């Protein structure tokens, strides 16, 4: 494909955004750079959830569990002196996956709303542990003072500017990795399960096993975002396990369009911007957000992205 062709057709919009992203910090102040960092991290979180929601048809309401586990792991390791990013993030991913492996055993035997209830309850158990085990987690006060990690190559991540590009790079890596995963035979099988479990079973697939592996992948990728968030904010506390976080991720999928490559990221962008900007305009920002969410779900329950897609056809 020639270079010029990359900027045509389906690559036009993404390329435009990629260029905009690279130039962004030179156009806008540090505050907005910070917002975009948050968008990248939330986008990774939302994409990991979409493996379950958009591709397997498992509406997990406790996704913050893996995010929080990786977050606390990052916090503990950092405060213990471990500065190497790669080591910490691999551990975070591993723990996220391990938690998912454990929770998956308990949750996947349930369907639909029961699945939602169980995943919600499981993440709340973790929340309760983080909240109450003060001697280890300092409870609601949380663990402050977590510094930026070292990634070697002499790059210092303390300035938000560098952390911005770093997060962008991780975001791209995750995007590509998920693209490969979800367009592989494994991904097709997951979507087959979402369409009709009975048919897949009849075709001889071990449906439970596919769901379970998908669940673990979701936990692993969620772990990446959990670790990144703690490095960005410098702080971890039980809200990293919060039900509002899990529900917000679902909202991101509904808003942006689940089951698509960029939908979760768009949804993440919308929600992060909405939350931060609306609060600058009115004290009643929570009310405004609630109204917006209800309105969007009532009108665009298939996701804004798919509305655009339909529009283009």
């Amino acid at each position, binding site marked *: 494909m020639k270079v010029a062709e990359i900027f045509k057709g389906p690559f036009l919009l993404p390329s435009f955004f990629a260029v905009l992203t690279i130039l962004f910090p030179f156009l*806008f*102040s*540090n*505050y*907005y750079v*910070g917002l975009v960092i948050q968008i990248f991290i939330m986008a990774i979180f939302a994409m990991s959830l979409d493996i379950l929601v958009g591709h397997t048809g498992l509406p997990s309401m406790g996704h913050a569990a893996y995010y929080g586990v990786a977050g606390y792991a990052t916090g503990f390791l950092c405060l213990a002196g471990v500065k190497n990013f790669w080591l910490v993030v691999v551990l975070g991913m591993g723990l996220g996956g391990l938690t998912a492996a454990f929770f998956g055993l308990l949750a996947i035997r349930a369907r639909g709303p029961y699945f939602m209830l169980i995943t919600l309850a499981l993440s709340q158990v973790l929340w309760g542990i983080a*909240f*109450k085990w*003060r001697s280890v987690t*300092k*409870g*609601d*006060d*949380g663990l*402050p*003072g977590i510094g930026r990690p070292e990634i070697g190559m002499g790059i210092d991540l303390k300035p938000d500017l560098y952390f911005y590009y770093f997060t962008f790079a991780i975001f791209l890596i995750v995007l590509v990795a998920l693209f490969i995963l979800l367009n592989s035979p494994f991904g097709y099988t997951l979507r087959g399960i979402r369409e009709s479990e009975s048919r897949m079973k009849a075709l001889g697939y071990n449906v439970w096993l596919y769901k379970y592996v998908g669940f673990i992948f979701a936990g692993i990728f969620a772990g990446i975002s959990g670790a990144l968030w703690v490095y960005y*904010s*410098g*702080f971890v*506390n039980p*809200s990293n396990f919060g039900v509002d976080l899990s529900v917000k991720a679902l909202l991101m999928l509904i808003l942006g369009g689940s089951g698509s490559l960029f939908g979760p990221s768009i949804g993440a962008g*919308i929600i992060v*911007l*909405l939350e*931060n*900007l*609306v*609060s*600058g*305009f009115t*004290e009643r920002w929570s009310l405004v957000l609630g109204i917006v969410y209800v309105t969007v779900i009532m009108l665009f329950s298939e996701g804004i992205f798919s509305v655009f897609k339909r529009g283009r056809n």
Partner: protein
Amino acid sequence: MIMSMFLFSLAFGNRGIAEAAEPIKIGYLAPYVGVFAKFGSDLRDGFKLYLEEIGNKVAGRQIIFIDEDTEGKPEVGLVKTKKLVEKDHVQILAGIISSGVAYAVRDYVIASKVPLVITNAGATKLTQEQRSPFIFRTSFANCQQDLAGGWYAYAKMGARKVIMMGSDYAAGHEKAAGFKKTFKFMGGEVVEETYPPLGTNDFAPYLAKVANYVGKVDRTWAFFAGSDAIRFVNQYQEYGLKEKLKLFCEEGVTDEANLPSQKEAALGVESYARYCIGHDSSENKRFVREYRKKYNYDPGSLSEGGYVGAKFIVKALEAVKGKIENQEAFLKALRSVKFEAPRGPVRFDEHQNVIFNTFIQRVEKKDGKYNNIVVDMIPDVDQYWMPKK
């Protein structure tokens, strides 16, 4: 629509400070929702009262007050602090009620070199092990009045044995530690300590245990704040403990903010406090009168805390003739501020924490209203105060 909102705030949020005649921006952080919501608004009301008394101007420069809601959550507090510093370009930060929020923003504030004047959060380490030239505190340290209280319980109230109940978070533990330190130093014994979680709906299970100690200890020490304090005091009376085992509390328990909901349950309860609405000085009487006139409710210790915080900042600004841009001079001036506050004379100690007189107060009823009156006073209490044995 979202894109246009985004672009709109980019355009208007990106202005920097031009010259010295420009206004001075104070970024203010407090919770307006949650367990401490009422304290948040009390604190702000007090702060703004002082700003209005000076016409929102100092040395010819206008003061712009930018208010952000921390929700009492450390992670939200950090986000809002970043917004105030990076988007609104404030020159001073003030406020903060929750110690958890204070600890979470400390590193960022120091790295950004923006002075923070804490007008409530008592997180002890911030003016001790984790102190910094950029961090000031005009309210109290979690242990300060408690040190005085512990001594008072032994020396003046004759208590020899106590049980302690406090909220299970940083402030609760730090305050208990302060009280324990002096009480034990004097020779007293703490028979049991219990720390119910923040937001405990029902103290009943803990109170049933307290009933076992009636006749065996002299006082119950308590620290709870906000809605917890209301419930605790009410339930303490419901279970018949109020008459049998007297409470001696930290001021947050029977603060003016809580009394309308506690009523008879709080009558006669004694506490130690940095501020007492009944303090009989002309400055306090004036302050209470102005506050009641403007806001139509009684000022509590949070209200006075906000007021004093604003006054410290403004006095320092006056000393440097409004040139806050000369940060070193401003900080030096701030360190040397002293004046007569509604609570009495105040000034900073060497670690930039405030020194004040501690009141012993009691809830009384007059003309159908419940308020605290002064019973006694311990002068010049700082965060390291110890009694002479």
